[in-house]
């Protein structure tokens, strides 16, 4: 990595300098070049002591060398190398050689022979190692030359017997990176060589130096990565290395064993102490499991992680990993898990646990206990009880991956995962909840497990609670008591943390729709209906009551007998909730309630094709309007826009697409309207009003184009061109309008120039797309460009005006997927009549909770705006940590906004809304530049020099009632 980085830096550095040279005249360049290597030569000759020479070399290394002169410099360096007696100087030269051969465009094969020659006479180990490193660089630069590689490998093999670990290290690294892997035509010779390479590396598994051992294993892994099939024979060697004294060796060995187990999962290996034989993958699994109780936590983490990816292992071994037997004074004891399970299966639900039911039962014969139980036994038990939370997280992850592929294992590991919900570190708890969610389709929770799971609902961390709600959304509960328990706990949660409302309702929605038959017997109790007496009508605004109803209605959807149990007011409440919380309450077929039932469901059954077709047809129609009269065009556009907007409302999956096109057509309509204005024919000063209309249109088009570019995810470069083109037209319009209304030419000059610059940059950015834009505004404009550059502003305006009129309307090709960024502020609700009181001059924190959809990079773009009644606007940049990412394309913003103001006489409303910030420089087609920092409070759009930064409001404003009181003296 470091080497790579160095290379990068070096390359960039060279580039910069080359540009500098461009600035100089060509003559100068020629003068400087030879002098560089010559200067070095002179310097080195002058150097009297090794220290001096080293200084010169260091200085030289700071300056980059151009490609053409590399070879000359290398020659000089080599010359000095042979003469030099001091090892440190030779070392520096060797490293410089390596650095130089990395120069892009330089082919280092010419210096290879020299480098190899120098190797032979070198005595210093450090210099040797450095030279080998240089050879490695040379070798990697010449990937298509097998003979060179073979030669280098041979050289490396020769030096493997060196007494210094550094040299051996480098040799192994070189062999690993350059050793032959491909099985070419000359099969026998090649495979012979390949075998040799593996054998050579394998021999060094027993090197006396741990660093060399590590390097040997790494070289082997490197060979594997390059596609060489490792031999099974090294498996045994690798197994021995697992017991190495050094952590790096063990860590590398674990990796090697894992690789081998993936290569030869089915081959059979004997178990040493007995006659039995097992599959290699099982054996390897056992060995890696053993490493979960290694002394070093780095190895433990690695072992635990690798376990997760060993999916071919047989279930017998897999289940051993969860094995744990309790003992007390050599007598077997049952674990709490077993006890809980038994209690459950025996059908006893009485909670009074008998005294001493965990008393030890059976006696264990001391002789029968095999203390050194090797292999898989209890690996996860160890991993999950590990001291370091990194290991625990890795173990949970591995459990997750294994459980996803094996349902029976999922069932078994459930107890342990549930156990992890009580871990002391929050990350671990969160991770285990997520894991559980991922495997939830394989499992059904027992009641006692559910109990533990639900206990976590009282956790004070919001992330944990929400993750748990998500988990409950997709778990299977086995009994009606379980459902009841879950509901009770969720309601408890609701009273303790009222902010969880939305999440809990959603959770109950899924809980209801998954378990209709379990909810059915609970309905009378939940609604507290009585067969004879009328019970009081519950409060409709009570979140807890709504929660219960959400559960019941969702269950009722697939349980037609349930509505019979409802009382009158339940039906009324249904109607209310169906309207107010339509995303939570499904349409129900209710008897005798024509009004309510199925108003929505059958009439527009979502059907993909017709609506998509409709979209395309309407667009076709619009694009063919060229031959219509202006009036007709306008009408057609208006109708189509209306249709599209309606379509977007009805069909949520097409909403992005429909809105996007509608916006585009809207722009076009505005443009046409503006050009239709009569003001173009009459002298300017008379038509100030119309003029305002046209310039407003231009401004609106600009805004809409920014929206189109930045608010939708999935916009491709083809769309971006069209959008930019539209923007260019709007700018042209603006220019024309200004030209007609302003007197004097001075300001116009600047504007014209700026516009032409923009046209130019448009051409540069989208040169590849230009052929698609036949007959468009820009196409024509570019044809006229030479004329435009030389003509006066007034002429430019005239030309623009005509081209604008003549240009055709560009088709907007639709991308595959298009989503509009939306935001919904959940908190504050804006319903409260109680003003938020605080002392003026001090700050008050307002909790803001919002969901964002289809926002790319929300950390950089989403802002909160607060508008005070006096017109003062504040822009708040939420912390990156305030954004959570619950699912793809979805984000959640939970933040606090600090408000402050001077004293008011009475409470008043402020508006809170979310904004999407954009920077026109950072268009989607180009690469993203690092974001500039935003000023805390900015009013309006500050136009910067090279790009316009602006904001688009993309959520409905929410009103908050506040009251800053005057401070008491």
């Amino acid at each position, binding site marked *: 990595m470091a080497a790579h980085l160095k290379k990068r830096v070096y390359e960039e550095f060279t580039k910069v300098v080359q540009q500098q040279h461009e600035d100089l005249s060509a003559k100068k360049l020629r003068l400087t070049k030879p002098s560089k290597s010559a200067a070095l030569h002179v310097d080195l000759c002058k150097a009297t002591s090794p220290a001096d020479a080293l200084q010169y070399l260091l200085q030289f290394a700071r300056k980059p060398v151009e490609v053409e002169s590399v070879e000359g410099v290398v020659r000089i360096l080599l010359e000095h190398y042979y003469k030099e007696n001091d090892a440190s100087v030779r070392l520096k030269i060797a490293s410089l050689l390596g650095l130089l051969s990395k120069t892009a465009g330089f082919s280092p094969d010419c210096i290879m022979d020299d480098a190899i020659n120098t190797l032979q006479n070198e005595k210093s180990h450090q210099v040797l190692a450095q030279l080998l490193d240089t050879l490695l660089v040379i070798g990697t630069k010449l990937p298509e030359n097998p003979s060179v590689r073979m030669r280098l490998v041979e050289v490396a093999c020769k030096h493997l017997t060196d007494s210094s670990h550094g040299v051996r290290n480098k040799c192994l690294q070189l062999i690993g990176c350059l050793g032959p892997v491909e099985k070419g035509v000359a099969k026998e010779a090649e495979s012979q060589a390949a075998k040799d390479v593996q054998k050579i590396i394998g021999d060094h598994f027993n090197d006396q130096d741990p660093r060399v051992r590590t390097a040997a294993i790494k070289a082997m892994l490197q060979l594997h990565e390059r596609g060489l099939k490792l031999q099974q024979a090294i498996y045994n060697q690798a197994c021995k290395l697992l017991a190495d004294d050094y952590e790096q060796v063990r860590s590398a060995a674990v990796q090697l064993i894992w690789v081998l187990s993936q290569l030869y999962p089915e081959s059979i290996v004997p178990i040493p102490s007995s006659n039995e034989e097992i599959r290699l993958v099982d054996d390897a699994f056992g060995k890696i499991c053993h490493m979960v109780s290694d002394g070093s936590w780095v190895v433990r983490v690695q072992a635990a992680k690798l376990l997760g990816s060993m999916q071919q292992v047989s279930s017998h071994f897999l289940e051993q990993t969860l094995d744990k037997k309790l003992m007390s004074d050599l007598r077997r004891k049952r674990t709490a898990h077993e006890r809980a399970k038994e209690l459950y299966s025996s059908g006893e639900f009485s909670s009074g646990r008998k005294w001493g039911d965990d008393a030890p039962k059976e006696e264990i014969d001391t002789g029968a206990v095999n203390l050194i139980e090797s292999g898989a036994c209890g690996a996860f038990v160890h991993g999950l009880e590990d001291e370091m939370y990194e290991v625990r997280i890795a173990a949970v992850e591995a459990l997750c991956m294994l459980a996803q592929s094996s349902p029976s294992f999922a069932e078994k590991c459930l107890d342990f995962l549930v*156990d*992890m919900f009580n871990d002391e570190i929050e990350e671990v708890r969160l991770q285990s909840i997520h894991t559980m969610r991922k495997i939830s389709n394989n499992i059904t929770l027992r009641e006692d497990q559910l109990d533990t799971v639900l206990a976590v609902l009282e956790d004070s961390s919001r992330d944990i609670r929400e993750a748990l709600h998500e988990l409950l959304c997709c778990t299977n509960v086995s009994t009606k008591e379980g459902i009841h328990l879950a509901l009770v706990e969720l309601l408890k949660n609701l009273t303790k943390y009222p902010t969880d409302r939305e999440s809990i309702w959603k959770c109950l929605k899924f809980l209801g729709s998954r378990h209709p038959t379990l909810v059915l017997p609970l309905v009378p109790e939940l609604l507290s209906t009585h067969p004879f007496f009328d019970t009081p009508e519950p409060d409709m605004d009570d979140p807890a009551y709504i929660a219960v109803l959400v559960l019941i209605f969702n269950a009722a959807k697939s349980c037609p007998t349930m509505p019979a149990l409802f009382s009158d007011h339940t039906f009324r409440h249904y109607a209310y909730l169906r309207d107010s919380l339509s995303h939570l309450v499904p349409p129900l077929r209710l008897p005798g309630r024509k009004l309510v039932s199925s108003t929505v469901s059958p009439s527009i059954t979502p059907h993909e094709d017709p609506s998509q077709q409709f979209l395309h047809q309407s667009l076709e129609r619009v694009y063919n309007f060229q031959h219509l009269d202006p009036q007709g065009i306008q009408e057609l556009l208006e109708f189509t826009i209306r249709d599209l907007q309606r379509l977007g409302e009805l069909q949520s999956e097409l909403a992005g697409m429909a809105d996007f096109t509608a916006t585009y057509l809207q722009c076009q309509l505005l443009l046409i309207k503006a050009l239709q204005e009569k003001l173009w024919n009459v002298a300017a000063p008379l038509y100030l009003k119309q003029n305002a209309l046209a310039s407003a249109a231009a401004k609106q088009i600009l805004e809409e184009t920014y929206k189109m570019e930045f608010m939708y995810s999935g916009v491709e470069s083809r769309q971006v061109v069209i959008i930019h083109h539209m923007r260019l037209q709007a700018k042209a319009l603006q220019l024309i309008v200004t030209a007609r209304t302003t007197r004097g030419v001075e300001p116009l000059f600047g504007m014209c120039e700026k516009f032409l610059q923009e046209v130019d940059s448009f051409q540069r950015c989208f040169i590849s797309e230009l052929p698609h834009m036949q007959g468009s505004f820009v196409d024509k404009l570019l044809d006229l460009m030479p004329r435009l550059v030389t003509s006066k502003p007034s002429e430019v305006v005239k030309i623009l005006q005509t081209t604008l009129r003549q240009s055709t309307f560009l088709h907007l090709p639709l991308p595959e997927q298009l989503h509009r960024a939306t935001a919904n502020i959940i908190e504050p609700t804006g319903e409260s009549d109680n003003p938020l009181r605080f002392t003026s001059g001090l700050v008050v924190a307002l909790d803001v909770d919002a969901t964002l959809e289809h926002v790319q990079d929300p950390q950089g773009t989403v802002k909160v705006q607060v508008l005070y009644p006096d017109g003062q606007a504040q822009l708040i940049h939420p912390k990156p940590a305030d954004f959570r990412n619950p699912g793809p394309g979805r984000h959640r913003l939970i933040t606090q906004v600090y408000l402050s103001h001077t004293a008011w006489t009475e409470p008043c409303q402020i508006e809170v809304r979310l904004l999407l910030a954009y920077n026109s420089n950072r268009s989607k087609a180009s690469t993203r530049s690092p974001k500039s920092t935003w000023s805390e409070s900015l009013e309006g759009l500050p136009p910067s020099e090279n790009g316009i930064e602006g904001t688009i409001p993309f959520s409905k404003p929410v009103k908050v009632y506040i009251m800053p009181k005057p401070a008491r003296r």
Partner: protein
Amino acid sequence: MPEIKVTPLGAGQDVGRSCILVSIAGKNVMLDCGMHMGYNDDRRFPDFSYITQNGRLTDFLDCVIISHFHLDHCGALPYFSEMVGYDGPIYMTHPTKAICPILLEDYRKITVDKKGETNFFTSQMIKDCMKKVVAVHLHQTVQVDEELEIKAYYAGHVLGAAMFQIKVGCESVVYTGDYNMTPDRHLGAAWIDKCRPDLLISESTYATTIRDSKRCRERDFLKKVHETVERGGKVLIPVFALGRAQELCILLETFWERMNLKAPIYFSTGLTEKANHYYKLFITWTNQKIRKTFVQRNMFEFKHIKAFDRAFADNPGPMV
């Protein structure tokens, strides 16, 4: 053939009075110097006459090593050094050195002031004894003399507990003291190099027991406490060992924090309070979680837990 001779002066087949004499390549080392809880006569201390019959303790022993501050490992120390007479070095870790005198003083108070015994060591003796102590760091190799070197490793169990490797020439012994392989709420697990000793002396109190996972046990415990508090009841938890009290405090504190509970928690003043002070200081000896949280706050500065006063006992409402 070199010889390592081990003589247990206490603790063989018994809990308490840990005291083991190891002779390794001509060097004599005493490991721990504890008292026995069960006796009030001479049997409460190890039988030092085994050594003194041949001469003075100081001449015989090269050093004394104390693994941790529990009284069954250090209780006889003042008796041994001051009353029997030993002037050589005593090695223990920094936290042990800090907390040990508190416990010894407490022990003295109970035996002398409450039971009215005479012929027992005095406060001054404890102080004098502590002056002979050399504190060591973890993984610090201490050269006791030219040949004998000792090295301490982390052992879990209680704050400052350590395992010791004793090395003379090419022979070595590892003495574990009390140690803990599963981490608890405030301490980590024991850890040692691959040091290949010739002899390993290990405690084995729970060797034949495999316990349920820590989380299961904690959950059961917390559930019961929580239920009682929710019902408005009062919970009394008797804790007998220093260290356990701290673990419980941490456990309850984090649980209270997690569940946002408000009921007050008290601990009886005295020992725990004094020791808590040192727990706050030796954060590096605790486990990963506490060390990580320390960046924000010290976990031993409890928010919900206060020192107990007799007047609180009759307060209405739930408490622990």
